[in-house]
């Protein structure tokens, strides 16, 4: 392996076939999401299912299309735990307040 100053790095992981499989998986999960919307399932189940599928889709894109699975673990550890922590903090701070303001609404 060469150093990073412009030389072509050795490209490990990911064949054309694996990319196509992941593309099909992403399309299939999108299809399930649209089906859920069509069936008009209850909101809470819908939200859980949609967010779950979206996170799986995002993970597949990051790991394979964005190649993070084949990078050093230190890159992942530098970037993602803080992103997840920030998002969780936003949710913890704002979501209870949002539901509280719903209950405090003056009935018209």
């Amino acid at each position: 392996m060469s150093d990073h100053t412009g030389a072509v790095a050795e490209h490990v992981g990911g064949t054309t076939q694996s990319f196509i499989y992941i593309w099909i998986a992403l399309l299939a999960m999108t299809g399930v999401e649209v089906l859920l919307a069509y069936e008009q399932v209850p909101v809470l189940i819908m939200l859980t299912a949609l967010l779950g599928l979206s996170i799986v889709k995002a993970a597949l894109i990051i790991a394979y299309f964005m190649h993070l699975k084949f990078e050093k673990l230190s890159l992942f550890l530098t970037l993602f735990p803080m992103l997840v922590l920030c998002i969780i903090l936003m949710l913890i701070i704002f979501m209870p307040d949002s539901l509280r303001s719903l209950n405090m609404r003056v009935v018209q």
Partner: protein
Amino acid sequence: MSEAKAATMDSVWQGGASPYAIGSKKFGMWLFIISDALTFSALLVAYTYLRLSTPNWPTPFHFSPSIIFSSVMTFCLLSSSLTMVMAVHAMNHGNRKATVGWILATIVGGLAFVVLHISEWLNLINNEHVTPFGNEWGVPLFGGTFFALTGLHMTHVIIGVIYLGIIAFAVGRGKFKYEDVEVSGLYWHFVDLVWMFIFPLVYLMSAKL
């Protein structure tokens, strides 16, 4: 060389020459992506906050045309991600001609997304009378958050199309290296990834048969 490499490998957390064993362009793009992800997260949290605390939040997305349109848009963006991976793959094998072809296919996917998205916007503006500042249901925040979120995402797609156009042009003329194509691919996949959250949370959660 091997000694230097070993030192780099051993001192990942001590700030070696290349602690992540990737180029600085790629690392820069990753840092941008993470900060941009926080921007979109903040907008999505704001959207969800307002939606939860508004009892009469409108659900104007009829299955036809809105949901069908946005599903086709999702297909365009997902497929353009596949062609972008192929472009990076071709560049890694030194095949510049194939790289340009795959990047052009990616640009076509991106443009199809933008055209469909604008027609979907026009449908919402003309038929449902939603603007960023008001609508018939008396929930102006719906238009505000909807156009802010999807507008920022569409801006990213348009910038991505221009970015990829420049990369394709330069690669075709024998300029730029593998890393440059890979970095542009990272940006494009990120734009795709953001849509994977906007599509379900904004469109599918507000679907109406």
